[in-house]
């Protein structure tokens, strides 16, 4: 009899607590930042597709599903490290199959050579090229992510990727710290 009472009591308690917990799980649900958004925030948003996915968000989704984190050349090692930190995996060097880390660049159209074919406009992932059919096109430099995607479609090869110039306001205090000294040999 006592065993039965104990079983009933514990059974009822378990049911009550289960209901409370179930209710709490629904009522006080924590809207956590989904992992894809967090990965997407780390990626450089060049939308260049060098990783093999059509943009940064698709790559973020792929990483969330277990893809390698070292496929983003524009982000470079710092992005890989941040991703490794977030995903709790080992940071590894950039996979050179997808490209090498390079200085930041911006596309520039040689405007007198442009024939106005609009092919680059269609290729630009961030709508940073301005123009219309049979009209000269131009790149909105501060919107350009330097993704390279407009270079290949151009039938007259009039797009150059030029490194972003260093100006006094984005200069990184790269003073020459240790000047090279010529030491003459004694013999």
């Amino acid at each position, binding site marked *: 009899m006592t065993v039965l009472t104990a079983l009933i009591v514990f059974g009822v308690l378990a049911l009550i607590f289960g209901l409370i917990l179930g209710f709490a799980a629904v009522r006080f649900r924590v809207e956590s930042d989904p992992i894809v958004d967090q990965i997407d925030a780390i990626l450089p*948003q*060049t939308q260049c597709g060098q990783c093999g996915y059509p943009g*940064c968000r698709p790559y973020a989704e792929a990483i969330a599903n277990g893809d390698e984190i070292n496929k983003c050349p524009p982000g470079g090692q710092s992005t890989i490290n941040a991703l490794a930190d977030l995903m709790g995996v080992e940071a590894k060097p950039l996979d050179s199959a997808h490209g090498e880390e390079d200085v930041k660049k911006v596309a520039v159209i040689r405007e007198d050579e442009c024939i106005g074919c609009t092919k680059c406009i269609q290729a630009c992932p961030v709508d940073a090229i301005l123009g219309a059919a049979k009209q000269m096109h131009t790149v909105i430099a501060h919107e350009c992510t330097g993704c390279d995607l407009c270079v290949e479609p151009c039938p007259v090869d009039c797009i150059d990727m030029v490194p972003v110039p260093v100006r*006094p306001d984005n200069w990184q205090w790269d003073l020459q*710290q240790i000047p090279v000294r010529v030491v003459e040999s004694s013999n």
Partner: protein
Amino acid sequence: MSAATKAIEAGQIWTFPGGIHPPERKELSNQTPIAPLALAQEYYLPLKQHSGAPGELLVQVGDQVKAGQALTQVGANNGLPVHAPTSGTITAIGPGIIAHPSGLADTVITITADGNDEHIALEPLADYTQISRADLLERIKNAGIAGLGGAGFPTAQKLALQRPLDYLIINGVECEPYISADDRLMREHAQTIIDGTEILLHIAGCEKALIAIEANKPEAIAAFEALLDKHPQLALRVVPVKYPSGGEKQLIQLLTGRQVPSRGLPIDVGLVMQNVGTAFAVAQAVLQGKPLIERVVTVTGENVEKPGNYWVRLGTPVAYLLEQCGFKPEPDQRVIMGGPMMGFTLAELAVPVVKITNCILVPSSQELAPAQDEMACIRCGACADVCPAQLLPQQLQWLAKAKDYDGLDQQNLFDCIECGACAYVCPSEIPLVHYYRKAKAEIRNIAREKAKAEVARERFEARQERLEREKQERLERHRKAAEARKKAQAEAVAQGGDNPQDAVQAAIARAKARKAAQAAAAQQENKEGDDA
């Protein structure tokens, strides 16, 4: 009146942590009156000589300009104008070297002087109290006045903040070694500085100003003491000699005991600070209508024959200024713009004097030894003892080297005023400030990149949405066209016209009939064959 305010009124001087006492060496340059400088042949005027956006160009190559004529205007970006320092012709507008530690080029207006030094007609103001505060601010802005103490923040912008103020502080401390530009200006033009201070008080809507002078400038102190009796709303405060007591936050602590909050402004604690040079320029701009086209520059160091203070037109090349002062360069001569603690070495002597240039220092290699090789940190802690902002310079250095930007933020890197006290005392010759500047630039760059990435993301998403929408619209258009076609056919049938469907059906029926006929004919042939 609270006890704290009483103490401020009574003239109490508080103290700030840290600080150093480097050799002052001001006697090199402060013995002679401020001398005028002969006109140069060419003047180089960078569009941006202050912190903020540059103004919009008003002139083009070939234009004749007179001294005081505006070359740029405030414009859409709320820039600060620059003015022609003398009369002449504009011979170039384009990239030229600017007064910046990077030695990089920026847009510069080149004026070839005609030697006549004709000035534009000035518009003096008889009584500034008669015109509105906004008009006064406009007048100061159009005169191109930026803080002449070193940071170059536009003065009108600083004064435009409308918050309750307890005191206006006029900074005549000039604590950096060698420099005596403010010292000489205070000795010779105390009355104009006082006039400027009263105008600043009027604009700021503030009751009282404190004029702070370091104790090593007895002549300047005497000049003000003689005049201040007639100006009850101004009070003189003599601060003890210590570097960097002229730093904005440090001086506020000295005079009021208040601390400016981290990443805050003096106005957060009810104070605003202006340099004595700025007060002088404000007086000239408001009372005489004179724009900022010249400033006092200390030329000093053992490798100039005539060290002293000079009225130098803005845009004067440093090479010309030094030539006029008897420049005797030694091999590998360094020329420093600013003082020995916070200045920077010039990459080229074609660099012009700008609004924030208070000193050109030409030291011999004995008096200011070139930077030695950096040695390992021995963790002596001397840097932490002297830091006026109570930071941990050595910790910051480790974090900067490790590029640990979160850690730097936790250690309040952005509270560092880059005074150089830590690097001065470092026995291992570690260029600490350089590490902090580099780390700050990198952190700012990361923030800029992040903002740019955010914009790129938005644009990418907007484009994806647009493409999707266009696809849907195209499908919708096709569907509607098909429907319209069907409807038109139905209507045509209803009106007794030919139904294209009927034609199709008829063709199918014909084809079937033909097939049936062929099949029948084949059967017939087979039968006849069998029979034969």
